[in-house]
């Protein structure tokens, strides 16, 4: 039972690798369905969500938390989708969106620029256009990663395994990934399943709070939800109402507590 995220630059054969890994491990696979489901649940256009997960924040966005809200929606749906395990996700930023689940195997597929340009050209673009498109896409992803997570997508420490598709073929990469997925660290134990479910609960709670209280932190362990907020936030009527909604909508919550005046833990959502 594996959860695998496959990150890649455009035209790096990442999709082909993901599909073959999913087939070999008999896992479900998804990418764009994430945005489709998020769009359906929260009534936000898919294009808007795609921008949130791909484009670096524009000047005005830096002064609003719209992107944060959309990313919260996306993460809530993503953690729900992977909670059952046995899944391959090859969409954008999987290694960052699922960073709080240690048993997720995070893979990056790399390829040299010339090879990527050649592959892009098979879609009907000229060499120059293909190169420009790829470089622009890489640039956007880099900026997004830096702005939202202060991370460089090319930083290998974000991944468990990075494979270059130029030296190793797609089949070799698939073989490597499947072997890695069977390692102890990536086994979906009952504890891991519990962690996934807790994380899903935390994100679902965050979804309800993020619009009005974007800076609250939430942790969840064994169904015990801890919300870290300021004194001022915690005493508002709106906050209390949202807490009631959280309890009503999430039956798996065993207990809900609010902590004020404490620093938000590093593992909080």
């Amino acid at each position, binding site marked *: 039972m594996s959860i695998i995220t496959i990150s890649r630059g455009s035209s790096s054969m990442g999709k082909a690798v993901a599909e073959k890994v999913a087939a070999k491990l008999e896992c479900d696979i998804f990418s764009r369905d994430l945005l489709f489901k998020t769009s359906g649940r929260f009534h936000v256009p898919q294009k808007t969500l795609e921008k949130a997960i791909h484009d670096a924040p524009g000047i005005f966005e830096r002064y609003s938390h719209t992107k944060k809200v959309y990313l919260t929606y996306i993460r809530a749906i993503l953690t729900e989708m992977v909670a059952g395990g046995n899944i391959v996700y090859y969409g954008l930023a999987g290694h960052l969106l699922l960073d709080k689940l*240690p048993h997720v*195997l995070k893979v*990056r597929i*790399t390829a*040299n620029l010339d090879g990527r340009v050649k592959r892009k050209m098979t879609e009907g673009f000229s060499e120059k256009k293909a190169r420009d498109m790829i470089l622009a896409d890489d640039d956007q992803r880099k900026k997004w990663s830096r702005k939202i997570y202060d991370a460089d997508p*090319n930083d*290998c*420490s974000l*991944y*468990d*395994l*990075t*494979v*270059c598709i*130029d*030296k*190793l*073929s797609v089949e*070799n990469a698939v*073989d*490597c990934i499947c*072997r*890695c997925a069977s*390692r*102890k*660290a*990536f086994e979906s134990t009952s504890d891991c399943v519990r962690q996934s479910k807790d994380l899903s609960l935390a994100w679902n709670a965050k979804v309800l709070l993020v619009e009005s209280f974007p800076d609250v932190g939430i942790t969840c362990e064994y169904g015990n939800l801890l919300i870290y907020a300021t004194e001022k936030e915690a005493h508002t009527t709106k906050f209390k109402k949202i807490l009631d909604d959280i309890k009503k909508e999430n039956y798996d919550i065993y207990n809900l507590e609010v902590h004020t005046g404490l620093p938000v833990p590093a593992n909080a959502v």
Partner: protein
Amino acid sequence: MSVLILSSENKELENQIAQKTAERLGYTTLDQQFYNEIAKKYTLDSKKLMDAMIITPSFLKRMPSKQWYYYLSCVEVEVLARLLEDNCVCWGLAAHLYVVVISHVLKVRLIGGHSLMSPGQGNMNEDKIKKIIAEQERSRENWSMTAYNRKEADPGLYDMVINLDQVQPDEAVDTLSTTMGYPRLKAMTYSKNNLADRALAARVKNVLLKSLTDIQVDAQNGTVVVTTASVKREKSKKIDTIKKIAAQVEGIGYLEVHWNKDMLTEAAMSYR
């Protein structure tokens, strides 16, 4: 004949994984113990040779630039010669920086795993460890950029990067051993000839760097191209010297020398 080259800031784990992989595959090993052999062959100070592989040229550290480049080239020549011989696991010799684009060579970077340190080092707190690692990485980047104009931590240099924070050393050994068995990594005449070309270029560069500076060498199928720079008035002399010295190297089919004007020195001298 296949070659595995490992690179890591975590020397302890790198050593462990390299040794176990070599044992599993039945390959020979090539590591920093090779420096003594190189120093002996070229009559170099072995401590200085090892220093050259860590520090950049420095007047204060008594490592002038010319000497430094020569020392590096001695290591390059001997490592490439050894890699031509047999199935081999190589680490600690910066081979990942100068063995490029050879299809039967797998280059792997090992990152993380610092929590798996031996008991003596485990007393340091996490922040201190992170600081030390960051400093080491900065230093290595500086060295590799000066020596080979490549960033050591650049993932583009490697065919695979394994994060030892999650993957155990034994599991990494499994992964490497399996990967080395892939048909794509099998040596072929074409790739062996490519490696032989690199070795030839390294040999030519080495004999030239003994007495000259500003030398780049490329080789293909026995044709060697030496690129150099100097002020205009020294052009003929330098080219002649290069041809004379390089002629001593075995295996050259045809030698060509390309000369570029050293603009900076030329400009500096024009004010005298």
